[in-house]
């Protein structure tokens, strides 16, 4: 593991009332890797990545991105720095066209550092997920699988350094999942990918490193092979 | 040197201050009842009822119709008409509120923003219907009895003291019903989780209609009590609405204890300030305070800090 990670967290705690939802002593995401976060329902996976991308403020702890402390930085500024998050519950703009959906993040990226026209960037993002020919259709009328892909395209249009995907394959058909794995492999060539995923074949096919969360804590961390062999993980999650 | 003379304002005479405090107590009592209605509706249904002041006005106007009919047509004594009004007016108002819930709020699925716009519409409808049938005049209602209590400085209307007592008794009853009875339990269960309550066989629709009716009835009772002191007028709903809003927000939205504390605070200070100084200034400060509380301390001044 590299000495300095791209996105790191230390002593990260989130309390909701009396409940400690997240309690992660140390977390390091390295540049260029595909990391999967797995764990049983209610393990705090979404809360954990929400702390990383700034949707929630942590109760304790520090988060750093490329060596810079971003603990108190608002979410939209973290996005500007290059941390993109795609939602677990599909959060596309149903009343807008597919084009307008990806134009929003593309527009933000151009405002931040210029380069390319809005049309080029938006269409490129749609093209990567294979939705370019549907650009003018209304997003809300698309199939569920296409909506999930659009969600990913919105993340890609931000040209992020770290792309956080929250259960991206949930509800997808098997054929769609195969295409999705290929897409993420391609994305990972230039982007670090942090993936919350329930579908173990997807995790095993994609992840280079796996972090297992249970009751808000890191239960195990390592390569897919190591995680598969870990007795504690077996007990808590895989073997169940 | 007389230090008192250096003060930028005149110190009020103790008798005047006492009178202000008594007026304030009467106002606080009626305000607490009215605000309690608004608070219960918000607390349980998450509905901000902008038409609440009109239910109050309706109570007062109906009280006039009832007492007028009893004393005018039948020739009954004032206390009889008033007693009937005290029962009939809140019941009619409660029925109208339940109808509003069924016709309007339920159909909006209690969406918070849509219900506000809809209750603004209901406000105009009730107010204009009152104008239609009651007319634009302010009319007095005779007090049910007339005796004066002799205080050290001045005599005081016994009726006003009875109003305070009645309001306190009623609030006690409401509080007991909400905390100690099965009806109260059902209401609170609905407040926490509407869908779960439904799953447990609680008739949520009926509970909501009942809560909305109860809230309106409390405002109506407050109005019947006050109408021998103030006159009934179709535009009289504005002030109690504003003051109830202030009370409910300062007390912490949905907090019954906070509502009571804030009602006493606002009622007394409004009574004192309005008697002695300038009522408009008091209202300006109160509305700004409310806005600031919502911006910086949404849980209210007297409410518990939210988790």
């Amino acid at each position, binding site marked *: 593991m590299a000495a300095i990670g791209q996105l790191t967290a230390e002593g990260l705690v989130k309390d909701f009332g009396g409940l400690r939802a997240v309690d992660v002593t140390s977390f390091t995401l390295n540049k260029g890797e595909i990391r999967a976060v797995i764990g049983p329902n209610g393990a705090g996976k979404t809360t954990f990545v929400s702390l990383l991308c700034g949707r929630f403020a942590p109760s304790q702890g520090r988060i750093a991105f490329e060596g810079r402390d971003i603990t108190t930085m608002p*979410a*939209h500024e973290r996005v500007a720095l290059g941390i993109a*998050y795609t939602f677990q519950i599909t959060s596309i703009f149903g009343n807008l066209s597919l084009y307008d959906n990806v134009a*929003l993040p593309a527009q933000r990226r151009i405002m931040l550092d210029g380069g390319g026209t809005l049309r080029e960037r938006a269409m490129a993002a749609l093209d990567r997920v294979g939705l370019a020919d549907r650009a003018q259709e209304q997003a809300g009328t698309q199939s569920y699988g296409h909506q999930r892909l659009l969600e990913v395209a919105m993340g890609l249009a931000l040209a992020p350094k770290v792309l956080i995907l929250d259960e991206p394959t949930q509800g997808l058909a098997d054929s769609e999942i195969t295409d999705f794995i290929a897409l993420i492999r391609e994305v990972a060539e230039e982007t670090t990918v942090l993936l919350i995923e329930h579908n173990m074949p997807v995790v095993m096919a994609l992840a280079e490193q796996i972090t297992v969360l249970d009751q808000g804590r890191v239960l195990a961390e390592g390569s897919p092979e190591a995680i598969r062999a870990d007795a504690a993980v077996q007990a808590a999650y895989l073997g169940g | 040197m007389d230090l008192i003379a250096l003060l930028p304002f005149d110190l009020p005479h103790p008798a005047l201050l006492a009178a202000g405090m008594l007026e304030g107590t009467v106002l606080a009592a009626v305000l607490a009842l009215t605000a309690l209605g608004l608070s219960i509706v918000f607390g349980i249904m998450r509905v901000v009822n902008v038409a609440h002041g009109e239910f109050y006005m309706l109570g007062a106007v109906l009280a006039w119709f009832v007492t007028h009919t009893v004393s005018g047509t039948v020739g009954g004594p004032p206390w009889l008409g008033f007693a009937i009004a005290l029962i009939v007016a809140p019941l009619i108002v409660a029925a109208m509120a339940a109808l509003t819930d069924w016709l309007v709020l339920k159909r909006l699925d209690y969406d918070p923003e849509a219900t*506000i716009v809809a209750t*603004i*519409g209901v406000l105009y409808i009730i107010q204009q219907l009152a104008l*239609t*049938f009651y007319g634009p005049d302010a009319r007095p209602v005779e007090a049910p009895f007339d005796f004066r209590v002799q205080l050290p400085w001045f005599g005081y209307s016994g009726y006003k003291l009875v109003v305070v007592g009645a309001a306190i008794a009623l609030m006690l009853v409401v509080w007991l019903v909400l905390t100690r009875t099965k009806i109260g339990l059902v209401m609170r269960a609905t407040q926490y989780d509407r869908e779960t309550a439904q799953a447990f066989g609680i008739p949520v629709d009926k509970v909501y209609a009942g809560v909305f009716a109860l809230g309106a009835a409390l405002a109506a009772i407050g109005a019947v009590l006050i109408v021998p002191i103030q006159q009934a007028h179709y535009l009289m709903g504005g002030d109690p609405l504003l003051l109830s809003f202030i009370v409910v927000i300062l007390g912490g939205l949905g907090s019954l204890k906070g509502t009571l504390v804030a009602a006493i605070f606002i009622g007394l200070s409004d009574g004192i300030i309005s008697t002695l100084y300038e009522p408009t200034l008091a209202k300006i400060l109160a509305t700004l305070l409310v806005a600031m509380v919502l911006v910086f301390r949404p849980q209210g001044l007297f409410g518990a800090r939210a988790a």
Partner: protein
Amino acid sequence: MIRTIVLHAAVIAGLFLLEPVLSDYHHGNLARIMVLATYAVGYNMLFGYTGLLSLGHAMFFAAGMYGCAMLIRLAEWSVGPAFLAGVLCALVAGIIVGTLALRTIGVGFMIVTLMFAEAAYLVILYYNEFTRGDEGFTIPQAVRSIAGIDLSDTTNRYFAALLLFAIALIACAAIVQARTGRVLVAIRENEDRVRMLGFDPFRYKLFALVISATMAGAAGAAYAVLFGYAGATFASVQYSIFPLLWVLLGGPGTTLGPLLGTVLMFYLVDYASGTIMPGLAALVETQFGIEAPGLASAYLLLVGVTLVLLVLFAPKGLLGTVRARMIPWLP
């Protein structure tokens, strides 16, 4: 894009061409409607496009109206600078109120704006020595002119109102068709998602609120100048409800909805107070023998009924429904 430009140009040209045809009565009405529609266009920027429901816009209308009228009355400013000062007052009020109120959301935002507006209304009443309170004050005809053009002349007044409305309409259409407008609409649909696309929603909401307040203030200042009157009624809750009603009726989030809603509601209330209600009152008394002493003046009943019906059955308003069913490109 071309369709949009043609449509707006046609509406403005239509209003222009109507001027010589209108009777005196409708002439005056339409001038008033265009000023009020400017107010509604501003309200729509915030409510229709950004999804923020303010219950206190009368304070911005009144900021423009009093900012302008008081300077004319007390400081003897001429109309041009006074008008600009009125607009500036509303703009500053928008920044202050927006910075505070936008810390809240949903119902909280509605009540905070309501309370600020109530405070503003009460301040106008409190300083009635200067503002003349409810009674208000008139601005003498002699001073109501700009660059030698007499604004109390009905034709000049009509064109001045049209100019104001046209500027507001074009500004609104330009903003909502541009990239900023896309972000505003996205905030209306899902604010959290917009934040996670790297935009600061607060800045965009503040922008929309300030533009909205400025348009409301321009309408208020223009009202004072063109109709020569300022009064506390224009700061009351009722004048915060009216633009909501007009926009809801015409279609929130459509550029032309505010104008349509204002026209319809203005004539409905006008016809109701002049004809329907008195007629109904006479009918009820003579035919049914029911005592209804206030029926003749209860025209606001229509405002209540319209609001409730719109919320229940047509939350998209007229043009919003047209757009959903027939003309999807309608701006």
